[in-house]
């Protein structure tokens, strides 16, 4: 394996890992904020219990998202210095804005929220978690604007003297149509995961600990399941728009999503294929006529360009070489993304059905399926990212810079193997610890929220929260 391959593996592993925590952070912070707001407005203690309970799960998860996020920022310079030199002028801007505008908000106000229960008035305290929530979405927006520029570079020119990309229009970068549709799609994906987690934990308690805090858990199931369902609807709507934009700006990615070798009009969408994907005809497949045309062009009769035609076009435009991404990988990740997300929505429906009209869920199968409720959309998020990043290959910046030319020339294979091993071992161990902690606190159930016993002097009062 050469250094570029190693650097790609490291980026893939660390980024997919980072994005296991991000969706739960973004989705859960809004739900916790909503619970706390409900408590402030109604005074009903069940909302405070839900805030504290899911807040704790949120924090365990946030810690991991935070520390793995630092690696992301450093990694561009460490492993992809040629990329950084080429794009820094454009790509660095949203990254710096993310840090200055979003990260400070998130970290500072989260500190206030965690430790400020007894130091801030109720409303201000609730406002703090809303500020964190806004911070997470701002952060998503800036980083996705940066990523979208790699998919669809806009608002720049190549400086003929230095050969580097230079920003010419920041508004174009920040309103890149790929970014504007990727942000809602990604954020909806976050709610899919968080809704799943909230539902799964609450259903588990309803089944296993009947009679305890039933009202609160029932509310949590309803809110969680509806969040999942609405998020899935949003996924489909935004995904549909995204598919059309992708067909326009990165047709090769769309062709690779279907493993469509020859251009077709109308083009079918295959739900499953058994057979070789190297261009020979499939042995067996379930096809829906015209669906790919609809996904790509909005018309069931539209023409979708095939991989071979695009390869020929690109060779003419960019010179000899392969412009095909890894087809089996793009084909299957695209299907897993959609299929797993939809399966999670079905599970959420099942959970809603199981508690209808005040019923206590009894199905043993539902309990067994509960872990899947957050896990399926989590994997769907990952496969979606793997699809969109692998589908861009061989480019790191579409049409401008190939991945093979982007890595740091002075970083050796030995150094890369060292960092790859360090991150993989560290991340693996931390994942194990984090999952066990999450399960421990999820099983513990809603906390007691009665006020602490009075103390003689204010100086001796225990902190409402301490590490």
């Amino acid at each position, binding site marked *: 394996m050469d250094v570029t391959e190693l650097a790609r593996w490291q980026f893939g592993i660390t980024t997919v890992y980072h994005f296991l925590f991000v969706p739960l952070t973004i989705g859960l912070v809004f739900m916790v904020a909503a619970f706390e707001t409900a408590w402030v407005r109604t005074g009903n203690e069940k909302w405070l219990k839900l805030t504290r309970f899911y807040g704790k799960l949120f924090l365990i998860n946030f810690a991991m998202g935070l520390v793995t996020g630092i690696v992301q920022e*450093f990694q561009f310079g460490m*492993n992809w210095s040629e990329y950084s030199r080429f*794009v820094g002028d454009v790509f660095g801007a949203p*990254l*710096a804005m993310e*840090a200055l505008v979003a990260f400070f908000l998130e970290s500072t106000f989260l500190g206030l929220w965690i430790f400020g229960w007894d130091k801030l008035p109720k409303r201000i305290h609730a406002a703090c978690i809303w500020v964190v929530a806004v911070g997470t979405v701002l952060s998503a927006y800036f980083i996705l604007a940066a990523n979208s520029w790699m998919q669809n570079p806009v608002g720049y020119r190549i400086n003929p003297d230095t050969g580097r990309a230079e920003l010419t229009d920041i508004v174009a970068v920040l309103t890149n149509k790929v970014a504007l549709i990727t942000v809602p799609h990604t954020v909806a994906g976050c709610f899919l995961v968080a809704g799943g987690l909230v539902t799964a934990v609450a259903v588990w308690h309803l089944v296993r600990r009947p009679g305890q805090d039933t009202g609160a858990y029932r509310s949590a199931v309803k809110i969680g399941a509806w969040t999942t369902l609405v998020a899935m609807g949003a996924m489909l709507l935004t995904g549909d728009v995204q598919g059309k934009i992708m067909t326009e700006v990165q047709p090769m990615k769309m062709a690779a999503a279907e493993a469509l070798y020859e251009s077709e009009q109308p083009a079918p969408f295959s739900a499953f294929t058994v057979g070789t994907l190297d261009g020979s005809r499939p042995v067996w497949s379930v096809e829906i006529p015209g669906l790919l045309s609809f996904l790509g062009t909005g018309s069931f009769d539209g023409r979708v360009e095939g991989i071979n035609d695009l390869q020929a076009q690109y060779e003419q435009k960019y010179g000899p070489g392969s412009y095909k991404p890894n087809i089996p990988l793009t084909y299957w990740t695209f299907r897993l993304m959609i299929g797993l997300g939809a399966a999670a929505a079905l599970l959420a429906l099942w959970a809603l059905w199981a508690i209808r009209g005040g019923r206590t869920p009894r199905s043993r199968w539902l309990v067994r399926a509960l872990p899947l409720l957050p896990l399926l959309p989590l994997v769907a998020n990952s496969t979606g990212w793997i699809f969109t990043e692998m589908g861009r290959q061989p480019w790191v910046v579409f049409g401008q810079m190939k991945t093979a030319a982007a890595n740091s020339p002075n970083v050796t294979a030995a150094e890369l193997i060292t960092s790859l091993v360090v991150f993989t071992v560290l991340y693996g161990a931390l994942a194990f610890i984090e999952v066990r902690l999450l399960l421990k606190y999820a099983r513990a159930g809603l906390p007691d929220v009665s006020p602490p016993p009075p103390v003689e002097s204010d100086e001796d009062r*225990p902190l409402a929260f301490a590490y």
Partner: protein
Amino acid sequence: MELTTLWFLLIAGLFIGYFVLEGFDFGVGMLVPVLGRDDRERRVVINTIGPLWDGNEVWLITAGGAMFAAFPEWYATLFSGFYLPLLLILAALILRGVAFDFRGKRPEAAWRRRWDRCIVFGSAVPAFVWGVVFANVVRGIPLNAGHDHVGSLLDLLNPYALLGGVTMVALFVTHGAIFIALKTSGDIRRRANLLAGRAGTGAAALAVLFLGLTLALRGGTAAVVLSVLAAVCLVGGLVANRLRSRTDPEGRREGWAFAGTAAAIALAVASLFAGLHPYVLPSTVEPAVNSLTLLNAASSAYTLKIMSWVAVVFAPIVVLYQGWTYWVFRKRIGTQNIPE
């Protein structure tokens, strides 16, 4: 002012903010097992920075982002050139951040001890490695015509850079001890003051030696003035550390002491940047051609202009609300305040 100069100053400012703020929380982290004799005391020590450390760390992330946007060449050369040192910093910061959060999540002594070790490792290692990295940046590293670092890891571990690392650790231990004294009550406060006095003497000696060598290497009037002021502030802080508090006979003038070490760290880092100017990363090979300067490392004028507006609007807001956090959590804590 040239926008490149403005951004050089801004990045220097971000690193100054980072080292002043994360400096004390690195120090606090290193002192957890030293000043905390039992679990309750260790929790007091950790909780002095509980609500603050995360926001402090963002100064580094912002400095990195600002470097990427304003001086992509600097960012690319520095981060790829110091590959293994930065890997070490990352691993340490990961362990440290997780440790703060996970430590209290289980009651077992072994569990907490393990995370305490991560906190010490995660605080001491970045402090030392940042010292090594910054010393090497000021000293210069071998760059080729493509601005890539061509030296080896062993070159980075030269005596001057190692001195930089040790100085950084000593300064942060002092700064952290004074911060703990400022934020706690009771016996921990007394011990923290004592420890700050002892560590401070060593830190002052190391800092004078390191800054002296730095000036010999890359001195200018500004760097000299800033270094002298840094030394004066450090001594002032250590004097305040000996003076008895007016309100509490057990305490010392911790506020002034903290102001002294904070100013000393700020001025020392500023003197490094002043010495560096107009370079951002000098090369020891063909310095005239291969060095990275404000001019050849910078982004286009348009990017700098946009980023300047963003910084002008948002940086003051950040400082305001972060300042507010410090105000909200201004009260001293002691063992009596630690919940079960």
